[in-house]
């Protein structure tokens, strides 16, 4: 950990966004994670994304479980709501919070232990229900807090720091998310902010269950030769399918692109995702093709990254439950207890 606070002095060119904040205003406390942890880079990417899309910090709720990754919400967007829940129970607490107040922007932060082991069921069900949230898994394939055992996302055959090979199959989080019904699914790498920041922005603007699997090397226990989640391994095997740009609703698109190099995906809120093709043709709105491509990647040992799947017209939990427009926590006594006359009317209708 670091003993001195990050100095308040800043670069002279630092500018305020439309919400009236500088990027530095979206920071949290100084990280107590190990120096070089990928999670800190993801925190920095979240800070950058929130700044770029002019988020009002008090309208964000950050929820997390237990683990290194789940400590990280302390290190970004300090002026927002936060809930550090029980191990593996972040999804249900987030679902409850979302039901009570749908006006907040929900960000679930979890790790491979929290989401792929103890909270695997919770993770799957929150995707199934289509909770409107951005669910980020900081995935390092290892239990760092307990000194480096394989986690459920460690690849079969990868070697631990002590030299043991992993004999179990790995859980592929993006495959599970797509299968369970998430409507925005991407994978990225903590060491590639150019790809990661726009993905986080797009996920936060997506009105449905958005899931990001971010490979985040554990410098202390999983950054050696033989690991498949090290900086070097991911850089060598990273197969980026696309890079996205997020174009907010009212902005006019003036740049022209050579045909076949970009695809535009219009989202429900009017925002547009511009997909810049990197090599092969890939259509992220085709669910089956997406599943196939991911499986091919697993077979050939590629780390397939980018926006993997998006449903441009998602439906969320509140839509399924047909709730009222007003957030439930804003309903007052006359709304909730309409009185004897109303009760009599309901009873009469049931007789």
């Amino acid at each position, binding site marked *: 950990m670091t003993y001195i606070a990050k100095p308040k002095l800043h*670069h002279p060119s630092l500018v305020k966004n439309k919400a009236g904040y500088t990027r530095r205003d979206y920071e949290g406390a100084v990280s107590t994670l190990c120096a070089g942890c990928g999670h800190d880079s993801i925190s920095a990417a979240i800070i950058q994304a929130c700044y770029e899309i002019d988020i009002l910090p008090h309208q964000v709720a950050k929820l997390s479980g237990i683990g290194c990754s789940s400590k990280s919400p302390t290190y970004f967007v300090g002026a927002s709501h936060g809930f550090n829940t029980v191990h593996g129970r972040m999804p249900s607490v987030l679902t409850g919070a979302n039901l009570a107040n749908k006006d907040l922007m929900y960000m679930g932060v979890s790790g491979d232990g929290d989401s792929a082991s103890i909270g695997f069921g919770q993770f799957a069900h929150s995707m199934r229900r289509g909770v409107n949230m951005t669910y980020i898994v900081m995935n390092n394939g290892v239990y760092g807090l307990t000194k480096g055992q394989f986690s459920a996302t460690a690849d079969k055959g990868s070697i631990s720091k002590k030299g043991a090979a992993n004999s179990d199959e790995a859980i592929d989080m993006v495959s599970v998310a797509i299968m369970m019904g998430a409507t925005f699914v991407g994978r990225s790498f903590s060491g590639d902010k150019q790809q990661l920041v726009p993905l986080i922005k797009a996920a936060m603007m997506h009105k449905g269950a958005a899931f990001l699997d971010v490979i985040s090397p554990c410098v202390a226990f999983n950054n050696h030769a033989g690991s498949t989640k090290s*900086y070097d391994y991911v*850089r060598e095997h990273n197969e980026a399918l696309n890079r996205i740009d997020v174009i907010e609703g009212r902005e006019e698109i003036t740049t022209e692109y050579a045909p076949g190099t970009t695809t535009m995906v219009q989202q429900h809120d009017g925002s547009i995702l511009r997909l810049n093709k990197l090599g092969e043709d890939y259509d992220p709105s085709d669910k089956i093709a997406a599943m196939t491509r991911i499986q091919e990647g697993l077979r050939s040992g590629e780390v397939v990254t980018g926006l993997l799947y998006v449903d441009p017209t998602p439906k969320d939990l509140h839509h399924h439950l047909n709730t009222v427009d007003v957030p439930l926590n804003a309903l007052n006594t006359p709304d909730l207890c309409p009185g004897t006359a109303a009760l009599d009317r309901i009873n009469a209708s049931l007789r």
Partner: protein
Amino acid sequence: MKPTDIKNPDYFHKVVDCQWACPAHTPVPEYIRLIAHGHYSDAYMINWKSNVFPGILGRTCDRPCEPACRRGRVEDEKLVKGKKEPVAICRLKRVAADYKDDDSIAAKMPKAPAKNGKRVACIGGGPSSLTVARDLAVLGYEITIYDQDPKLGGFIRTQIPHFRLPEHVIDEEVGYITGIGNVAFRHQKVESMKAVLAEGYDAVFVGSGAPRGRDLDVPGRKEAAANIHIGLDWLSSVSFGHITKVGKRVIVLGGGNTAMDCCRTARRLGGDDVKVIVRSGFDEMKASPWEKEDAIGEDIPILNMLVPKEVKHEAGTIKGVLFEKVVAKYDDKGRRSLVPSGEPDEFHECDDVLVAIGQENAFPWIETDAGIEFDKWGLPKLNEATLQSTNKKVFFGGDAAFGPKNIIWAAAHGHEAAISIHKMLIGENVEERPGPGVTVLSQKMGIHEWSYDNAPTIDHRFKVPHRKKEEALKDIMAEVELGFDPKLAFEEAQRCLNCDVQTVFSGSLCIECDACVDICPMDCITFTPDGEEKELRTRLTAPAMNPTQDLYIGAGLKTERVMVKDEDVCLHCGLCAERCPTGAWDMRKYYMEMTHAEHACRKQ
């Protein structure tokens, strides 16, 4: 871009902006840290070695270091609650002089060895001559200093009023030099260079200053001469007690530091209505901003854009000065000229006029056939590095060399001239200059421990306490500035960013995890594909907008990208090194000392 060669001593020297800007290259951050730790004597000795007159300069230096100070670039007006201000480097130097342990300093002073049989004459007893004397006396040279005034010190003693620089400070620091031994003082005005050379000196150093004050040339000047004084001469007469009063209404002509000293001195000698009247605009005045502030603080108005036209007088008694009003006009090359504004002339009544409109070099005592050539401006033709004149035995320094500068330049010249004289007299090539002494040492003490206070403060610059105005104006010997006390000195010292503790990058150790990029409060680190400097500056984490500050390029990365660090705004907080998992970043203290005559054979 080419990877940065950090083995070149200039690279890290330039990052220490204050040291780079100082003509004598004093290791500023090092002595400021020593002051913060209360090691005043050690801080004093660092200064003494480098600039010879810490107590004097700590009160009077022109402070080229302060405009260069990094804090002036990185402070945020809202956070520090005031405008961007450099560290009070100059006044901290005085703290070292004020609180040092005089006995331990005396014990640390060098003593002259046995005479080496060579004799050197120094003409003029000012700072450049004294520096030459100090650097050469410790090598066994026999030094003779000539000066027309009864005490050594030159302009330091005659031109700077004692309310700014008490005489005991001059006595003390001159005493450290004469105390070395082998330094003789001859109270004698030199009238002939050839006569000096005829005395058989092995080398002659001319540090005679720029002693001639420019005169006013307007109608009435001669008739009212009794009440019109040349500022330089007047200050000198005040200093030696020959002049003790002045008229009630005084006009000071000129906008330089001499004018500021004249007007403040006049206030103390009976001048109730003292004003400074300047040809130029207020901002273009040559006086240092803080000297103007001090003058204004003593109720001295500064009137601008007025050119003296005529001195009005009646029966040999001065009545006042008539001024023409002017405006500044700039031609297409940006050159300024002052043209009459067409408004009616202004008349200002007065009893005395002090003329401080500039000073000039004058060498009437150097014969044309002494082998010393002069240029068309009347300045000696010199080798700029060695300060050697066309007569190989004769060297120049201080204001005598390139025209009026200041004390710190005089000390720097003195060091260089001493090196030249020593090299010449031991038969080495004078033009081969010695390189500086450099040590670079890691400051890491433990996993998160550094040997310096790395957390930058957001305190605004602390003000030096002043004596009450009523008291100060009553007594010409009462020093106006009281100096920082140890507590204020500590707080001001903490504002120093320790720019000499350098960020050193080793590409071969880097795993490109971005930890340093993410933590850097100034966004000055970027990992990116290489490019040309101009284009690279635009695509960094934050644009590098100051082309006078270098980009540190680190290579040897696995991805073949480069690490680019913009030195401009780095706080030297060390967070990059603290967050680095592999030690690819390290904070290393760069200590650079200029080489003086003692080690003149050190190779570059």
